[in-house]
C-alpha cells in the first residue's frame, strides 16, 4: 500500500530517518557484525593476542556436552512453557468469552501479570517455593517430597517453568480472547441450529478459526521463552543446579561474563541469531498465509 500523494523534498526525509538509523546502525548492526566477527576469533587467557580461527569456536561448541545440555534445556523449557501457558490461557479465554456479564472484569483481573517483570515473577515464585520458609516449599517437604530447587535439577526446572508460565498466561489470554470475540456469533448460532453441541462447536468451528492466533502465539511464546525468561532464571536459579536451567541465552551471558570467553560467547550469539531469524521467517510465512486466508 502506498500513498497517492506525497511531499517532495530532497533532504528532509533523510533528516527524519537519521535518529533511528543512527541508533540502529550503532547499536544493532555494528554489534551484530562484531558478534559474527568475534565468533571467528580466539583470545588467549590474558586478552593479549587474538587469532583468527575460522569455525574453531563453533567446532568446540558442538563438541561441548554443556552446550548440548543448554540446547536440550532450551528445547524442553520452551516446549513445556509454551504448551502449558497456551493451554491455560485458552481454557480461561474460552470461559471468559462465554461469560457475558463478567468478561470485562475477568479480563482486567487476568491481564495485569503482563506488566510484571520476568525477574519479579521469578522472585515471587522463589519466595513461595523456597524450601525452608516458602509457603509451598515447606508444604512439599512436609509431605515428604524432598523439595529443593537449589540442589535438585528437576525441582529447579519445575520452579522456573511455573514462574515463566504464570507470567505468560496473561499475554496469551488476551490474544485468545480477542480471537474468540472476533468470531462472528452468527457462525456459532448457525452451527447450533445445524445441531452441533457446545463441544462439537468448539472443535469444528471455534478452534479452526482460532488457529491463526494460536500459530502466531506459538512463535511469540517460543521467542519469549528463549529471551525474556533470562530474568527468571537469573533471579531464581542462576542456571543451576549443574546447568539444569541454563538456556542458550543464559549460557551466552555466563560464558561471556564469568569465563570471559568472548569467542565462544559470540559463536553462541550467532547461533541464537540464526534461530531468531528462522523463527521470524516462520512468523512471516504465517502472516502471508493469514492475508490470503
Amino acid at each position, binding site marked *: 500500500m502506498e500513498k497517492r500523494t506525497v511531499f517532495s523534498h530532497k533532504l528532509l526525509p533523510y533528516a527524519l530517518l537519521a535518529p533511528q538509523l543512527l541508533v540502529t546502525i550503532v547499536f544493532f548492526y555494528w554489534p551484530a557484525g562484531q558478534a559474527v566477527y568475534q565468533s571467528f576469533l580466539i583470545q588467549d587467557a590474558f586478552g593479549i593476542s587474538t587469532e583468527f580461527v575460522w569455525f574453531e569456536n563453533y567446532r568446540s561448541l558442538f563438541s561441548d556436552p554443556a552446550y548440548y545440555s543448554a540446547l536440550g534445556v532450551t528445547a524442553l523449557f520452551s516446549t513445556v512453557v509454551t504448551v502449558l501457558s497456551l493451554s491455560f490461557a485458552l481454557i480461561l479465554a474460552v470461559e471468559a468469552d462465554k461469560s457475558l456479564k463478567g468478561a470485562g472484569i475477568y479480563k482486567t483481573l487476568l491481564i495485569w501479570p503482563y506488566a510484571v517483570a520476568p525477574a519479579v515473577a521469578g522472585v*515471587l515464585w522463589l519466595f513461595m517455593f523456597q524450601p525452608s520458609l516458602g509457603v509451598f516449599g515447606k508444604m512439599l517437604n512436609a509431605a515428604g517430597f524432598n523439595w529443593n530447587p537449589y540442589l535438585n535439577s528437576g525441582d529447579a526446572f519445575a520452579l522456573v517453568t511455573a514462574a515463566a508460565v504464570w507470567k505468560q498466561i496473561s499475554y496469551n489470554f488476551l490474544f485468545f480472547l480477542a480471537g474468540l470475540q472476533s468470531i462472528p456469533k452468527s457462525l456459532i448460532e448457525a452451527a447450533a441450529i445445524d445441531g452441533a453441541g457446545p463441544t462439537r462447536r468448539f472443535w469444528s468451528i471455534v478452534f479452526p478459526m482460532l488457529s491463526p492466533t494460536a500459530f502466531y502465539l506459538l512463535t511469540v511464546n517460543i521467542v519469549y521463552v528463549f529471551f525474556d525468561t533470562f530474568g527468571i532464571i537469573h533471579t531464581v536459579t542462576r542456571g543451576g543446579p549443574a546447568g539444569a536451567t541454563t538456556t542458550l541465552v543464559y549460557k551466552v551471558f555466563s560464558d561471556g561474563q564469568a569465563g570471559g570467553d568472548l569467542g565462544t560467547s559470540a559463536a553462541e550469539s550467532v547461533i541464537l541469531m540464526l534461530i531468531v531469524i528462522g523463527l521470524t521467517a516462520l512468523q512471516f510465512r504465517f502472516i502471508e498465509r493469514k492475508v490470503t486466508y
Partner: protein
Amino acid sequence: MVENRPFAAIFSHVVLIIGVVIIAFPVYLAFVASSTDATTISNGQLSLIPDRHLIENYAKVLFEGTDRSTKQPMIVPLMNSFIMAMIIAIGKIFISLLSAFAIVYFRFPFRNTAFWVIFLTLMLPVEVRIYPTYKIVADLHMLDTYAGLTIPLIASATATLLFRQFFLTVPDELIEASKIDGAGPWKFFIDSLLPLSMTSIAAMFVIQFIYGWNQYLWPLLITTRDDMQTIVIGIQKMLTVTDALTEWQLAMATTILAMLPPVIVVIAMQRLFVRGLTETEK
C-alpha cells in the same frame, strides 16, 4: 449464548475464579510478606492475613534499605526505573514517528533500504548481541549513565511499523487538502498527523513504558554504581546473600514497589494497552 444452561455458566465462573486466584496468589503472598516482620518469615510462620508492619517495611526499604545485603535506599532505583522507562518510551515514540513519517509521506532514493534496515532489527534482540553492544557502550563512555541504559534500546522496529501502519490508513485526501490549504510537510505533521495519531501514540506509550521498566539483562550489565541501579535489579541484589540472611519482608516490599507502576499503567489504561499490544504484534 446459544444454550441456556445455568450449570454451564456456574462452571465457567468457577474456572475463571480459580484462574484469577492462581494468577493473583503469588502477588498476594508477597504483599502479606511485605507487611510482616523478619522472624515470622524466617520461622516459616507466614499467615495469609496481612500483618501490621506494612508501613514500617516500605518506609525502611524506600529510605534506608536492607540491613544485611545492599543497604541502599530503594527510592533511588525506583526513580531510575521511572526515568529509564520514560526515556525509552518517549524516545522510541519520537524517533519512530519521524521515521514512519519519512517512509510513508516521502519518495526518495533508498527508501526501501531504510525500511528494511529498520525492519530487520526485529531479528536482533539485545540478547544476541549483548557483549559487542556492551563494548560499544563502554567505548562511548556511556556505562552507568542514563544514555547508556536507554539509547541502545530506543530503536524500535515495532513502533515504527505501528505508526507506518497507522499513517497508511489516514485518507489520502487529508494530505491533499492540507497541501491545497498551504501546509508543508512539517505543518502537516504537526497540525494533522500528530493529533490524529494520539491514540496510537498513547497505546505505544503504555507498551513501551512497561518494556523499559521491566528491562533486566541490559541494566544488569551496564550499571555497576548503586545510584544507577533499577528497581528490578535492586530486588535481585537483595537476594544474593545466602537465603537465611535474605530479609524477605523487605525484598517482597521492593517486589511490590517494582510491580506497582507498570501494573497500574496496565489497569488504568487497559483499553490503550490492549490496543497497543494487539496492533503492534500482529
